[in-house]
């Protein structure tokens, strides 16, 4: 909120502080002076406009008087008493207008005064300048007077043209559903049952606490004014303002809680101001729906507990005078201090609220810094943190650049990337109020964001892309939304180094995924062909572990690539981390004690005999001391018949208990070859 320094000082009997010092002290007690600018226009030389961040719990300081009270508390001077004198003349207000509050919850207090015979016109320059300095546009002297009192004392007021109020009466009541009201901004508002309205004998004339109506506003021909100064229920004002999308200076304050005592003070101040700048006489008497103030709240606290809470000693000689300056009327009885909460401090309820009052004025920096004693054992990562952190390290270990992409995405891309066995575990979850249609649904696959990111890199001319992410996928289920931890990668462009590059292919992707799974400590998984709309037909795989699909991998379906304007292959994989959570702690295997015998074997076979089938058959045919088989090279083309392929395998024989002789290896090797030839119909050259 904007404040004028000279106006602030007007509320102080003497101002003992320079502007800079005052700004610093206010900031230190919680009123952050964010900006200081020289005031231009009619102001005094050296005057300043301040932008002060008044937190939402302190509506009482959203006006010059309220901030001056805090200024007084930080030593800027004494708060000057308000001049509450009003000169009354003529017929009593009670004979000129009537006020009835029918909705006591919506309007705890309604005060009104009548000013007769005003001459509506422009405000005096000093007043217009003050309003302008605070960012309020001057309109006419009567309306300006209400705005002036709002900025001065914090009480929102409204001026009605009394002659336009049917029956010269005001009723504060709940709106009837479907009733309409044209507000000052010219918009026709349709009202609902929870709204509070000010009505005359016939119709609503103002939206309580938010905005007046157009039909009863002050015009050049207004003679008699009914001035409203009320308190309205914060929640009901807020609901209505929220629903209508109407935020006004008045609603801003009422939503945060208004001071019921100020309703009466402000209407006097405003009536006096109007009669001063617009002429007219203030009718004797105040129309007040609730003249009896409710019993003020009392908060008691223990000085000892205050110190225990703060972690330092704040002497009573500081506490008591401070609370007095804040108008909290402290009464000390030994260790106990009782404060009477003034009506303007709607934020004070608990002893802790008073600790805050004391501490912010004592100075946070005067509280010593003391680390709490250790009261627990060492900390550790809980929930899914150990798993996702391991996954991040495993991704980095296979060369992936970790990306973070948005959890929400485009529904079309979402559906396309979610068409895999991993992502089909629930419905897409739409956002009810998305920022745009392109980010209107939660992802069921991390690939939604990753393929988009990969496409962006390729469009920027990247020759190689390897991105990954660890995060959550979201599934709508009858019971709510289920969140699953996932990891995903996307690979595109070239692999290799400067003197040996080639385009990435499926085996590059598979190697990455295998490396990642092994980094998670998992045993080797089984890969089998898998087809789903996510992946290009015939170029996808499902990765199985313990009978479950833990991952899918393959070439992204071309149709999805086209959606992203990418023609080149994108190799993608997604891993269900929950499925691998329990797996994998590395255990020690004794190192081999006896030498291995290595022999190569070249097999010529049909292309549709898979490597798994070939090796499976070989392992079954060989003795158990065939330790392992690895591919050396695969060859197709010249010298090999169409539909066939030559695979060279390297077999490692090693016995756990003794050295192997060359003869027994040879014998086993040849026996295995014979069995393979018989069982699979393969040949050897």
């Amino acid at each position, binding site marked *: 909120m904007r404040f004028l320094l000279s106006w602030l000082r007007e509320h102080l009997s003497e101002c003992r502080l320079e502007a800079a010092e005052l700004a610093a002290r206010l900031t230190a*007690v919680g009123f*952050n002076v964010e900006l200081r600018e020289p005031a231009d226009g009619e102001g005094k030389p050296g005057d300043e406009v301040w932008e002060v961040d008044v937190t*939402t*719990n302190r509506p009482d300081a959203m006006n010059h008087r309220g901030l001056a009270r805090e200024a007084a508390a930080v030593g800027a001077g004494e708060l000057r008493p308000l001049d509450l004198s009003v000169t009354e003349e003529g017929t009593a207000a009670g004979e000129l207008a009537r006020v009835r509050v029918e909705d006591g919850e919506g309007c705890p207090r309604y005060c009104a005064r009548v000013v007769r015979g005003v001459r509506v016109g422009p405000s005096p320059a000093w007043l217009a300048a003050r309003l302008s300095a605070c960012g309020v546009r001057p309109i006419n002297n009567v309306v300006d007077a209400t705005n002036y009192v709002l900025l001065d004392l914090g009480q929102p007021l409204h001026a009605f043209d009394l002659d336009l109020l049917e029956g010269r009466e005001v009723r504060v009541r709940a709106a009837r559903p479907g009733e309409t009201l044209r507000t000052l901004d010219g918009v026709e508002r349709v009202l609902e049952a929870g709204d509070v309205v000010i009505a005359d004998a016939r119709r609503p004339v103002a939206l309580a606490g938010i905005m007046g109506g157009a039909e009863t506003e002050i015009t050049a021909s207004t003679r008699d004014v009914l001035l409203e100064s009320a308190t309205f229920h914060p929640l009901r004002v807020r609901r209505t303002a929220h629903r209508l999308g109407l935020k006004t200076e008045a609603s801003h304050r009422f*939503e*945060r809680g208004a001071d019921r005592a100020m309703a009466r003070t402000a209407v006097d101040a405003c009536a006096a101001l109007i009669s001063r700048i617009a002429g007219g006489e203030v009718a004797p008497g105040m129309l007040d729906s609730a003249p009896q103030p409710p019993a003020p709240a009392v908060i008691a606290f223990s000085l000892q507990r205050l110190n*225990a*809470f*703060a*972690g*330092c000693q704040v002497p009573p000689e500081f506490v008591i005078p401070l609370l007095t300056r804040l108008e909290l009327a402290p009464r000390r009885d030994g260790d106990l201090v009782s404060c009477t909460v003034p009506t303007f401090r709607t934020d004070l309820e*608990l002893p802790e609220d008073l*600790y*805050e009052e004391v*501490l*912010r004025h004592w100075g*946070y920096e005067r509280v*010593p*810094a*003391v*680390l*709490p004693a250790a*009261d*627990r054992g*060492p*900390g*550790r*990562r*809980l*929930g*899914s*943190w150990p798993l996702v*952190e391991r996954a*991040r390290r495993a*991704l*980095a270990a296979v*060369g*992936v*650049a*970790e*990306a*973070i*992409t*948005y959890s929400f995405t485009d529904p079309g891309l979402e559906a396309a990337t979610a068409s895999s066995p991993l992502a089909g575990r629930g419905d897409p979850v739409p956002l*009810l*109020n*998305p*920022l745009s249609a392109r980010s209107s649904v*939660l992802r069921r696959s991390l690939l939604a964001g990753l393929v988009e990111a990969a496409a*962006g890199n390729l469009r*920027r001319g*990247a020759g190689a892309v*390897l*991105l990954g992410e660890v995060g959550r996928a979201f599934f709508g289920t009858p019971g*709510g*939304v289920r969140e699953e931890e996932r990891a995903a990668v996307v690979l595109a462009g070239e692999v290799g180094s*400067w003197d040996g590059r080639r385009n990435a292919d499926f085996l590059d992707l598979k190697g990455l995924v295998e490396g990642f799974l092994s980094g998670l400590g998992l045993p080797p998984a089984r890969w089998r062909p898998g087809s789903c709309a996510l992946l290009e037909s015939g170029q996808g795989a499902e990765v199985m572990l313990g009978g479950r699909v833990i991952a899918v991998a393959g070439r992204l379906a071309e149709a999805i690539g086209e959606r992203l304007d990418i023609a080149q292959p994108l190799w993608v994989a997604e891993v269900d981390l929950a499925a691998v959570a329990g797996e994998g702690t590395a255990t020690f295997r004794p190192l081999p004690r006896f030498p291995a015998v290595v022999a190569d074997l070249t097999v010529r076979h049909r292309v549709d005999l898979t490597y798994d089938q070939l090796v499976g058959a070989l392992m079954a045919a060989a003795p158990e001391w065939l330790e392992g088989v690895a591919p050396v090279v695969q060859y197709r083309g010249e010298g090999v018949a169409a539909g066939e392929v030559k695979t060279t395998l390297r077999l490692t024989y090693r016995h756990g208990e003794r050295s192997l002789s*060359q*003869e027994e290896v*040879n014998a086993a090797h040849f026996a295995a070859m014979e069995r393979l030839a018989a069982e699979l119909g393969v040949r050897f050259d």
Partner: protein
Amino acid sequence: MTAPQLQAVRAEFDAELAAAGRDPARVEEVRIRFAGRRSGVLRELEERLKGLPREEKPAYGKALNELKQYISERLEQARRGVGPAREEIFLDVTLPGRAPRLGSVHPVTLVRREIEEIFLRMGYSVADGPEVEDDWHNFEALNIPPFHPARDTQDTFYLPGGLLLRTHTSPVQIRAMETMELPLRLIIPGRVYRRDSDLRHSPMFHQVEGLVVGEGITFAHLRATLEAFVHVLFDPALKVRLRPSFFPFTEPSAEVDITCILCRGQGCAMCSGSGWIEILGAGMVDPRVLRACRIDPQRYSGFAFGCGLDRVALLKYGLPDLRLLFSGDERFLRQFGSEGAL
């Protein structure tokens, strides 16, 4: 199989001797490896001769002898500094190496881990919770009832079924206080969401919050913890300033400023000339919040603090724009390595 095996040994020997060039020490290494008396390759091959069937022995023995002779002659030549004319290969050591692709970790992950490490050392555990939340955990239990003005600053994405995307990591505090045993020392990092998008705001970002609840927890504890945090994360020379503020879930509340790391407090564009940058929000847990979690505020007290991880990453790495973090631009992502500051 024997002859090819000896061939392979010969080829290997040639290669190693060539690599040794005229360096006597390296020639000696090659000699020991192949012709060493105890465990040289030739010695091993001799051992194998003993195990061969009688009929294979003569052929193998002959070939082995030839190999032995070849090796000893070549070693002798090498020692004398003569040998067959060898092409001098110019090795250009300035050519770029064949680099393995190194992984990299997102800067937000790096700062998160750094913060976690600081607090793990102080006995905090790292907790997590759902990103899809209900109104109770995200707002009401945190002393933000429906229509509370504080909801204005936390524009919320709503989901069907009365659910929402959490607007802060604070609901995890509530879940922890509801379910875990006291005393509590937690650090809670995670993704959060607000319906806001411009140069300085992303609809998705990251927070980390800390929560300590126990008997006798004081404001002084909070202050010291925040100072320790800032000093380890940034620089022990930085000043930490606590400014009274307001959050519905803490009482008293503070905004925490640190000396501007760019201008060191002199005033610059980044700190709007003030010399300070706001980095954290903090406070003592409001008794209303403790009560909402069925914790007796007469017996227990606590403090909480929170900051934006993305903002810390921006400050630490001097990034110009928040949106870069979520761009997926590999040129950006690969700048930070996988370890971060140790």
